[in-house]
């Protein structure tokens, strides 16, 4: 009970800060929205069909959602570095709430913010000529949240390990761009050269993006673009299992990391 209360308190503060920082909200949406403009209406005519009924704009939209969730979740770790820099982390670490609850609250906070950002992309999408069936929302939002939790946990874990602002920024860039580009956000992941194929398939983000894409496009066309491992095409459930397994690992690491903070 105490722990739940602690998780809530940590979560609430992160959301409050997010809400105060409208500039961050807008700037972190700018990048994905730019992609939507360029690929959604601008480029898609010249790219042809990627699968039956799927032009480039349709293809990339779920990827952009995934990317938004990824970037926001990942950056949630910066709040830990920031708190350390400004001393607030001490207030948290010396408080009588368990470190497990701190890590959980932080992860959920980051994931909630990522979900909000992802949802904003969904809201803005029609403005850029991208549509999706509304009836998938009850499935899509939980899937986005699961992906967000897994990646937030990773962000929080890294944020709690890396002590300086500069180093954190460097590591984030070093990890984030490959994870975006090698995840099938921008191109279908079948028929890739071997080295790329391997990297794509060990990238957990790939499975998150694939599950979102299968939901948005429907199973039929998505299957043609889907991920195959040893001849087996991944279903949404299998994708999500991989994401969840990765998420559990990261949450455990984040909890351990907070537990051993000095």
């Amino acid at each position, binding site marked *: 009970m*105490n722990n739940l*209360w*602690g998780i809530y*308190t940590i979560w609430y*503060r992160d959301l*409050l*800060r997010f809400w*105060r*920082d409208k500039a961050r909200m807008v700037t972190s949406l700018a990048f994905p929205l730019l992609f939507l403009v360029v690929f959604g209406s601008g480029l898609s005519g010249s790219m042809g069909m990627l699968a039956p009924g799927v032009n480039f704009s349709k293809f990339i939209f779920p990827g952009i959602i995934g990317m938004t969730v990824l970037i926001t979740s990942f950056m949630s770790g910066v709040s830990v570095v920031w*708190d350390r820099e*400004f*001393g*607030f982390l*001490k*207030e*948290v*670490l*010396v*408080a*009588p*709430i*368990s470190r497990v609850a701190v890590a959980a609250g932080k992860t959920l906070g980051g994931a909630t913010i990522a979900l909000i950002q992802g949802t904003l992309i969904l809201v803005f999408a029609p403005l850029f000529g991208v549509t999706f069936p509304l009836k998938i929302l009850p499935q899509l939002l939980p899937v986005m949240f699961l992906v967000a939790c897994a990646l937030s946990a990773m962000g929080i874990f890294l944020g709690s390990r890396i002590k300086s602002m500069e180093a954190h920024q460097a590591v984030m860039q070093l990890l984030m761009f490959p994870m975006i580009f090698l995840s099938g956000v921008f191109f279908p992941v079948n028929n890739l050269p071997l080295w790329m194929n391997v990297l794509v398939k060990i990238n957990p983000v790939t499975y998150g993006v694939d599950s979102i894409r299968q939901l948005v496009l429907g199973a039929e066309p998505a299957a043609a673009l889907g991920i195959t491992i040893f001849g087996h095409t991944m279903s949404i459930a299998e994708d999500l299992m991989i994401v969840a397994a990765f998420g559990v690992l990261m949450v455990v690491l984040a909890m351990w990391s907070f537990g051993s903070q*000095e």
Partner: protein
Amino acid sequence: MSKSHIIEVEHLVKKYANLAAVNDVTFSVEPGEIFGLLGPNGAGKTTTINILCTLSKPTSGKALINGFDIVRQQGQVRQCIGLVFQDPSLDERLTALENLDFHSRVYNIPASLRAERTEQVLKMVEPWERRRDVVKTFSGGMKRRLELARGLLHHPRVLFLDEPTLGLDPQTRNRLWEFILGLQKTEGTTIFLTTHYMDEAEYADRIAVMDYGQLIALDSPEVLKGMVGGDMISLSTTDDQKAQTELKERYNIQPEYDDGQISFEIADGSRFIPTLIKGLKTEILSISLRRPTLDDVFLKLTGHRLRDEAVRSEFKEIVRQMGRHQRRR
């Protein structure tokens, strides 16, 4: 270890690389006591506090708070302590109220008490009207006061105050001390204090003096002052150098020299002054006699004056805030 001590420290050591910031420290604190830890900058005071409040692990040695081990029972230790850190630790993006609210929640202050306590501490240290302002817009002193308010909010068993009044105006310092002393009286709170202000150190029931990571004295302020013995005479002359040599050679006195003042201790000061005025070749500009203060004790033990340390700490604070400003740009 006896049960009656609220803080119990045995052979505590903390090493950073090859520097022993805390070097084999042993002491204990009684429940309800005001315990002052004094020492020059870098003596290891903050490090000691960090270890006691579970923020940092000792390299070796042992410490108990309220009977709980600071390494193996961190949860229980955190439950019974409160802290005012030397360095800033507020969330500057939140308002004053939100900062206090976060604290009340993580410290499990019952909802029925929360509003009342918040108002009480805020009114003591803060312009109450600014409670809904974002902390970033506060002045340095206001932030410090908010930090104090937060530390007092949950009425802990043991309250660690690491240079709590650094950079505060005298009125606020007085009000704060009233509150702290009140808390000690009504709730039996144990206060563990570091300070560079002599008048604050006088509030302590016992004082430990730390230097280079080791305790070099531990006793009540009265006994410590007794260590200096006799009276303190300070004088300034036209040639302090020469006057000191004279004192050494003629009267066999070992004077300290600090900030344009020659000072020394002497058994019967009021009788010695006429002798000195008649006897000293160097012309005396001023002379004064007083009972020894903690400042004299500190000077004798560490070779620094407390007053300098206070100035130095304040200077450090300014430099730090400047650095922070630059980084933020």
